[in-house]
């Protein structure tokens, strides 16, 4: 925050928040399984995954609303595993906001500082300052019910930030807002985070939202962290089939290794058609690869030697605005999703039933894993090529 409440520096302890091999069970269900996360000070960190993946439980473990069955939680290098939420220097923004309906905006925000026995004039100063920060000046005497959804959201943020927490924990805070407001609030949140320098831990199931705002993202599935990386890294180099499918649209192909040369592996489909990928160099007989739809091009002329080259029939054409999505069925029966930018003036306008030739550079086949049947142990990989929209 500002001068009065500087962000705590947790760098010397190896991260503002550290989860050490944390496991949490509810009855027979393991909600969080052996999770290891380090969140740096000042970072915008997102926990991303489908509902029931354990992301909210992970957040609540950090806040102190849940106690882990195994493992440790460290805040700024201090072991807080067994501390109650009241004793942890983090604050949470709830999905339903949890604003106190019988109090004014100012009283809502002053709730935390009052408990911490901050002097009254100091509280008034901080409340005024934080109201300015979240652009709610003049609203201090309103009740939450008199505010719009976006304004309520900002009150919830202000109520947490006014305490100068080491980290702000946000549990799908934009879920209740409509799409347009959500987009605005995403940018506002990111802006607020960089202005205050506070560590944000953000839970969402919306991959686009996570990509827009985060410095780093932990993709969770069935209680485990599948991958923890920057948005760019997650998109370009997904560590598992799940991540590839969850982040953006992706084609997953199980590659049967028919040959190896020049640092590439090759699957022959007959009649000169082939799929190429960088050689993982472990001698495995199959490789699971992912190809992003926008990297696949329609071949108009000769296809270079270091490019995959397959023919197929267009089965579906969907106009998506900036791109057109084609679903192309290969001779093997597998389907590939292809995105074409709508600014291309090549005169080619494929229709369902048309024969097309596709190609993409071998380097754009990203190898997720290798092996025989189950390429990535632990990942619920669908070995068939799938195009999944999220």
């Amino acid at each position, binding site marked *: 925050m500002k001068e009065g409440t500087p962000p705590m520096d947790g760098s010397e302890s190896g991260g503002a928040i550290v989860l050490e091999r944390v496991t949490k069970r509810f009855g027979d269900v393991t909600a969080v399984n052996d999770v290891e996360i380090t969140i740096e000070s000042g970072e915008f960190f997102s926990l991303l995954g489908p509902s029931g993946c354990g992301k909210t439980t992970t957040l609540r473990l950090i806040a102190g609303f849940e106690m882990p069955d195994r493992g440790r939680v460290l805040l700024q290098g201090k072991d807080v595993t067994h501390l109650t939420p*009241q004793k942890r220097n983090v604050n949470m923004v*709830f999905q339903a906001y*949890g604003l106190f309906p*019988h109090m004014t905006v100012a009283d809502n925000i002053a709730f935390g500082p009052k408990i*911490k026995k901050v002097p009254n004039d100091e509280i008034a100063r901080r409340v005024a300052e934080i109201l300015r920060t979240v652009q709610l000046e003049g609203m201090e005497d309103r009740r939450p019910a008199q505010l719009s959804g976006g304004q309520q959201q900002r009150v919830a943020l202000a109520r947490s930030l006014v*305490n100068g927490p080491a980290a702000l924990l946000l549990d799908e805070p934009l879920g209740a807002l409509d799409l347009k407001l959500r987009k605005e609030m995403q940018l506002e949140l990111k802006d607020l985070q960089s202005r205050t320098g506070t560590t944000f831990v953000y839970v969402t199931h919306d991959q686009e939202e996570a990509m827009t705002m985060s410095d780093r993202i932990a993709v969770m599935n069935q209680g485990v962290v599948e991958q923890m990386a920057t948005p760019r890294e997650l998109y370009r180099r997904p560590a598992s089939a799940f991540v590839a499918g969850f982040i953006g649209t992706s084609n997953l192909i199980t590659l049967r290794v028919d040959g190896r040369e020049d640092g590439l592996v090759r699957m022959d489909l007959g009649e000169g058609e082939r799929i190429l990928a960088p050689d993982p160099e472990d001698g495995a007989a199959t490789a699971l690869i992912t190809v992003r739809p926008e990297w696949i091009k329609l071949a108009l002329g000769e296809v270079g030697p270091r490019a995959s080259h397959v023919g197929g029939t267009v089965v579906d054409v969907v106009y998506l605005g900036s791109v057109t999505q084609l679903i192309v069925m290969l001779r093997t029966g597998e389907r590939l999703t292809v995105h074409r930018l709508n600014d291309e003036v090549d005169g080619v306008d494929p229709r369902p039933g048309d024969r097309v030739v596709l190609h993409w550079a071998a380097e754009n086949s990203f190898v997720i894993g290798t092996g025989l049947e189950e390429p990535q142990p632990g990942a619920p990989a669908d070995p068939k090529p799938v195009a999944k929209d999220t």
Partner: protein
Amino acid sequence: MAAVATPVRRTRRTGRGIFGIMFAPVTLLIVLFLAPMLIMVQMSVVRFPPNVASGYVLEHYRTVLTDPINLKIWWTTLYIGSTAMAIMLAIAMPLAYYMVFKAGKWELFILLALVLADELAPVVKIYAWQSILGREGILNWLIPGSPIAWLLFSRFAVIVTLASTYITYTTIPIYAAMKAIDFSMIEAAVDLGAGWWTQARKILIPLAAPGIFIAMILVYIPMLTDFVTADIVGGTGSYMMGQRVRDLILSGGDWGSGAALNFVMLVVSVVASVFAYWLARLNKIDR
């Protein structure tokens, strides 16, 4: 073919229906509720002994309002009622909280137990307390040493028995009010550093206030007029207003004073109810 005519007829019927539906309950209300009350009011102003030629006076009201005995009984009644109320609130608040936020699958079970406990005939419950609190009762049998005399036939016994009789009516309105509280408000308070007392004082009690006021209306009024409990487990120090009215009418034959006293209590109850209702309205929050 006939479908065209039907809607018209149906509209007409609905118009008449409102009065048809309301006729029976309104009549019942007048015959069974208002009429006895009017008779009571009339009784309270008829000169004693009551007969056709006795005429009307306000004498009885002057007597019941100035008699120092009545004033003393009024304080005893308020003391017993308020202590019982305080005990019930102290039990009902945490119980309702537990039921709403912590009990999970036991919530319904506790609710059912509360309702069943109320279904038990009050007299049976009162006699049960007699056997618990008595000189040879369960409590004195459990506590070593010479038997404690003040457990039964005392204010203490009346308070305990009243509290156990009306606990259902105290808990359920508070439970209903708490049911409307989003648990994330409690968690937000915890997250901001509130201990249990701050949570109760700043969040739970203000938000459950409408339920608390309703509980107080529901319980205070019957408690203030109760005479069976004090009769069976009470002693000389627990003579209550309900007993006073009963004794004035049945033992003393003083229908005028009994009715006047009863009417004064009715007015006090109505004023208190309106006040509580106003407080509840004041605390009603747009969510």
